């Protein structure tokens, strides 16, 4: 198998595993469909924005949870925002972590919230690595002169 086919095979397998393992959902493929010649780096740009956003929100949540008197509504509003953006980019595990997080906010359970914050942080870190790996594969394919296969 030539280099390009091998890389494409890897890309397809890796992408499929991301869907299969629930790291991304169908909304992520919506993102990929919006990428075209007029918008060639769309997915990378949106994903980068999302990770910056995520980092900022996680910091805000951590700060809010450190207070003597935790303002759970404040924490919840950050989680709410992250839930919105994660669902919109297809970051399925991050989104699910947010859903769980919100129930602890509503219950005003600080320990539970801290656990969820850790979970969110972990999911975001893992996803970031996975997607960076995916983008690297894409770049390798393009550098070898191939095209990115569509994965349905």
């Amino acid at each position, binding site marked *: 198998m030539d280099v390009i086919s091998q890389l494409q095979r890897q890309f397809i397998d890796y992408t499929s595993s991301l869907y299969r393992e629930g790291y991304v959902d169908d*909304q992520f493929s919506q993102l990929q*469909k*919006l990428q075209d010649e007029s*918008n060639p780096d*769309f997915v990378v740009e949106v994903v980068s924005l999302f990770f910056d*956003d995520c980092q900022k929100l996680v910091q805000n949540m951590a700060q809010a949870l450190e207070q003597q008197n935790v303002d759970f509504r404040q924490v919840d*509003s950050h989680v709410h925002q992250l839930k*919105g953006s994660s669902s*919109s980019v297809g970051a399925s595990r991050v989104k699910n972590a947010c859903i769980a997080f919100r129930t602890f906010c509503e219950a005003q359970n600080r320990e539970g919230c801290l656990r969820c914050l850790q979970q969110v942080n972990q999911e975001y870190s893992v996803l970031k690595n996975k997607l960076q790996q995916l983008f690297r594969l894409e770049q390798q394919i393009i550098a070898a002169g191939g095209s990115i296969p569509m994965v349905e």
Partner: protein
Amino acid sequence: MSGGSSSLGNVSRISALIVDDDPVIRKLHSAMLKSLGIQFQLAVNGKEAVDLYRSGANIHIATKELRAMGVSSIIVGVSSRCSDEEREEFISAGLDHCYAKPLTVAKIKSLLEGIKY
């Protein structure tokens, strides 16, 4: 631009305003509208309106203010909360439609098909 836009008629008569304080959402929704050939503007200002929407509880006020200003255009809410209760709240506040996030191109298309333009 994706195909199938011919079934939507003349979208050049539509202009949209995307309001969301989340830059990820603004970028995503922009690309979706662009793919359908719809012109749009982004609002990060009109901060008060955005804040009111974001705080959820005050959408009545924000929408009423917009309507009182003479805004008769269609207002579509896109929210991560979309329980039946919240949908009712949106509609009774004067919004025309409410969609749950994530917004998709398919949802926008179905909205457009319901509008006469």
